[in-house]
């Protein structure tokens, strides 16, 4: 009888009073997970820039070369800009209407006058201001390109091909 009490009863005691018994029945857990998707709608990219070309006129008081007219094909020296002994052109000048010492400024003013019905009107910019404007244009281009890179960066990091998954563990009641 003694051995029974000494062996079985402690066994029952251990089996029935282990720690888990005091905590109540172990609840099964449920694991739920849902993908964290960041759906960012990508906007359509702006249409490319269309720029019209402009024409710059560089004007100075430098003389415009007014060469002699070349000899015709059938002449003795075809293609040669022949001059007479006194230095004048044998066949005349290419632009006979240009007076001696005709400059780029003269030509510009003449053309401008013709284009504006006898008035002379134009916007002028100095060389140094042209340099400043060119620099500004490059600065604008730099800004456009850098902003463009930022757009490309955001686009790259917000286009998700694999959504991140977060898991949440909770005890079932």
């Amino acid at each position, binding site marked *: 009888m003694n051995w029974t009490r000494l062996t079985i009863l402690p066994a029952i005691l251990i089996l029935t009073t282990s720690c888990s018994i005091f905590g109540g029945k172990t609840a099964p857990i449920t694991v739920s997970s849902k993908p964290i998707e960041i759906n960012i709608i990508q906007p359509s990219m702006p249409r490319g820039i269309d720029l019209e070309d402009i024409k710059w006129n560089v004007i100075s008081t430098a003389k415009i070369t007014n060469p002699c007219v070349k000899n015709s094909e059938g002449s003795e020296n075809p293609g040669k800009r022949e001059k007479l002994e006194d230095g004048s052109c044998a066949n005349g000048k290419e632009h006979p209407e240009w007076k001696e010492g005709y400059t780029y400024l003269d030509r510009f003013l003449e053309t401008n006058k013709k284009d504006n019905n006898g008035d002379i009107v134009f916007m002028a910019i100095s060389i140094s201001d042209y340099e400043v404007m060119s620099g500004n244009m490059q*600065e604008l281009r730099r800004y456009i390109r850098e902003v463009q*890179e930022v757009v490309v960066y955001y686009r790259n990091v917000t286009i998700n091909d694999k959504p991140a998954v977060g898991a949440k563990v909770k005890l079932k009641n």
Partner: protein
Amino acid sequence: MQQFFIAIILVLGIASWYLFSENQTLTFNNLQLKVAIEQQEDALESIKQAYEKQGDSLNGMINKNAQIEAEKNRYMDVFKRHNLNKLAIVKPGLLESKVNKGTKNVFDTIEKDSRELDSLDDPTGDINPNN
């Protein structure tokens, strides 16, 4: 005595069943937690990849911006190296063609730059990151 043993066996049986069911629950929970850990690892991997992607994109952007800045400085150097004033006085015709060509070139590059951005959402575009 016999009744006592029957009682002990009964108690042990109930206790064993209870512990067995607890064990089952714990095994199930363990399995669930393993799955949860795997999912968390996947999530972490995904986050890590996203950070790497961001880091790469950021580095790419920084490098590109440095190139853009250098290109701008290279263009501006042209004015430092040449005396345009002198050239305009002596050879205005030559400078005129250079200036017009340069302006056209700048306009064309700006147009081209903007086309690159426009082609981002073009599925066949060269710089589309999804291609």
